[in-house]
């Protein structure tokens, strides 16, 4: 069965330090992977996605993510964190052989950037 896991409920990082938000997945076929960010009382904003090609994907606001097929992971990274990056981050996935239209979502990771 397809699934996605965000093993950390919360990640704390000092401003200026690199950040990583983890995501692992299980799908049928090739994975299509997405990262979204959610600020309080707002909808989800798209950051980046991996469909095919280069394993390192660059997205909005300086974020990037690395697709690792052998580890079935798609961790979100940023070289230097900003206080304004504090938000809830969601990883989502579907597989190329899935027969439905659903994205499977992780439970989210709360990112706190301390000044």
């Amino acid at each position: 069965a397809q699934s996605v896991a965000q093993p950390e409920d919360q990640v704390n990082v000092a401003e200026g330090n690199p950040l990583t938000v983890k995501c692992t997945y299980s799908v049928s076929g090739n994975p299509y992977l997405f990262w979204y960010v959610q600020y309080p009382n707002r909808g989800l904003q798209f950051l980046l996605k991996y469909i095919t090609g280069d394993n390192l994907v660059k997205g909005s606001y300086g974020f990037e993510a690395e697709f690792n097929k052998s580890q079935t992971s798609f961790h979100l990274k940023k070289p230097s964190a900003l206080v304004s990056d504090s938000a809830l981050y969601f990883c989502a996935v579907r597989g190329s052989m899935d027969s439905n239209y659903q994205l499977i979502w992780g439970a989210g990771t709360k990112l706190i950037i301390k000044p």
Partner: protein
Amino acid sequence: GAGVSQSPRYKVAKRGQDVALRCDPISGHVSLFWYQQALGQGPEFLTYFQNEAQLDKSGLPSDRFFAERPEGSVSTLKIQRTQQEDSAVYLCASSLSSSGSFTDTQYFGPGTRLTVL
């Protein structure tokens, strides 16, 4: 350009009342999705439209939930005889194409926060 809009942003209903939640997708977007998001959780898929056709309603939790998109643009999610467990944020998303809907980016509205008393 205009993004996905949803109305109302907040809705309070008494248990047993019917509610209707509206979604205006990005103009020209073929695909439309409804999600339910509980506090502190990821979105849960409810239903999917390709133009006016409802191709997947497997996520609707009960027959009290009904969605439509009669002209292939605006969509309405209706909940009949609301229950307290229906309290959640209801998110709408749209994406550009149908054949690429599996890989297309979904663009989300701000959501409607439903509270059932």
